[in-house]
């Protein structure tokens, strides 16, 4: 993600963004693991980077994220997904000043 100022450019790397997102994911209640995205058959082959569980498509001004996680059995899965989505968006907005275009949550498996 790039921000232009009159003195130059500020670039926030995908890695930095993923770390912010991971913090939100790991603190989300009901999520017990991130899943290795390469094990999942993907529709799109646009991978900016391979990092466990988080796919980011960052064209410099728009951010689309896909998050692959394992949920715990016995929790309200949709609610946990919404909570996590909220937390990710909060982190991106508050700490990086980025309003993501999409944050898609994929519950890959349920842990017993």
């Amino acid at each position, binding site marked *: 993600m790039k921000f232009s100022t009159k003195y130059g450019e500020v670039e926030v790397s995908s890695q930095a963004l993923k770390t912010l997102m991971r913090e939100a994911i*790991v*603190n*989300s*209640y*009901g*999520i*017990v*693991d991130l899943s290795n995205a390469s094990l999942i058959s993907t529709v799109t082959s646009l991978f900016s980077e391979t990092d466990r569980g988080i796919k980011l498509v960052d064209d410099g001004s728009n951010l689309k994220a896909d998050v692959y996680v394992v949920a*715990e059995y*016995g*929790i*309200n899965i949709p*609610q*946990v997904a919404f*909570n996590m989505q*909220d*937390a990710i968006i*909060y982190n991106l907005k508050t700490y990086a000043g980025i309003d993501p275009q999409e944050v898609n949550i994929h519950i890959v498996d349920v842990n017993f």
Partner: protein
Amino acid sequence: MNKALIMKNIDGKVLISCFKKGTEVVLSHVDELNALNVFPVPDGDTGSNMASAMLEACKNLDALESNRRDLQSVLDAIESGTLLGARGNSGVILSQIFRGFKQGTKGKKSLKSEDFALALKSAREVAYNAVMKPVEGTMLTVVRVLSVDSEKYVTEDTAEFMEKLWKRSVQIVNDTPRYLKKLRDAGVVDSGAKGFSYIIEGFYRSLSGETTVNLNVENIGTSGIVKISQEDLKYLYCTEVMVKTTRDVDIDELRNYYSSIGDSLILVNSGGILKLHVHTNTPGLAIDKALEYGELYKSKIDNMKSQHHQIINIEENPVISKEKKNYGIIVVADGSGLESIFKSLGVDIVINGGQASNPSTAQIKESVESLNARNVLIFPNNANILMAANSVKEMVNGKKIFVVNTSTIQQGLAGIFAFNSQMNLLENERNLKEAISSVRSIEITQAVRDSQVQDINVKKDQYIGLLDGNLVASSEAIDETIFLTLEKAKVNEAEVITVFYGKDVDEEDANVIFKEIQIRYPSADIELYYGGQSYYHYLISVE
């Protein structure tokens, strides 16, 4: 304490009572819990979220048949209810705690205090298993510490056991800032942890004899949220301050003072914290006044001319305004245009609902309760909603409720026009009746299936016209239907024809129809408005 209750083990019936009492205690502190919510994000909904989970479980408990109130069935009901009603992190954690607790009861029929302690261990395990990074200083900490300490409190008297659990939980809650920096910075305890301690308080109070439960409690612990007025840059600085109060807060004095130096005032005093938000040109004075009440720990002054200022917008319902009015009006309508029209006519609350989706009795009841008025009039505007509205009459105390007999939006509008807040109820009743009977309601929509009504053949997807509820026209072309129906309504004798077009109708098409109506019926006053309703393409009132 009643001696007969001392040896009470916790069976299904006792647990129902405990859980409901716990719900009552949480409900009576919802605002406080919301105000305390700073972790993980300050979205201010912990109280509401926990209440949602508890209430959903209470619904399940109420639905249990009298012969299915054994402990395991009750625990099942609680588990599934909290699961379904879980909102936010706190709701989800709560549901896991109850789930783990149930597993820890290992099928028992009733619990002595040592069984309760054992079940707490399982609750702790299950709750901690469901998160990668359990955060201490939250509800999880309370469960963890209690799961260990409860062993020490085991005694024959379950009420005594629960009292010790409750007191310990309060200590842990007060300790939470020690674990979490965010709590320390905000000078608050963790809201989820506090909520959980309220549940245990409920369990204790129920076991010691307070078995009556009232789930319609007023919120205690907040000193009133003052009504927000419209924004305009009369005052430049958006000033927000949080104060850890060291003396009693005179909310009235504060409100008067801040209203004299600014507007858009929000004052919340709860849990030892005073939160102030005001728009003023003298931020220094605003802060000085706050300092009289304690230590400042957070402050922010924004010049609202700058682009990044966020204007705080609070919904009108339900704001608890301080003046009690004579009349409050609630209307059920579907459509953003219709909503604005009703609001501009002085309606207090517009509940969204109509043919496609009826509002629940609970929604109507909530709206009635949120109005600070002696008399409340409800315009259901649909025959199906009439019954729900009538049943609310018995559910609310302290206000007189009148359900106006309107079965269409058009009747509702006619009624609102005829209503006069200066007149007494009897006169209004008479005027309303007259106005409603003098309007004819036309509804234009699409048929969902083939049918035959009297001598009219209806095919699916044709446009049908209803006059006062009776199908009088059907055609492939919407304009033909409209004009056939208008004819049946003897519109050539009418004085005023008002047309509302729905959200599926193009403004252009509506205008074409409008002009055609004007041409055909030149003697009548014709008006066109955007109603925004779904389901009915056009709603027409003929007077």
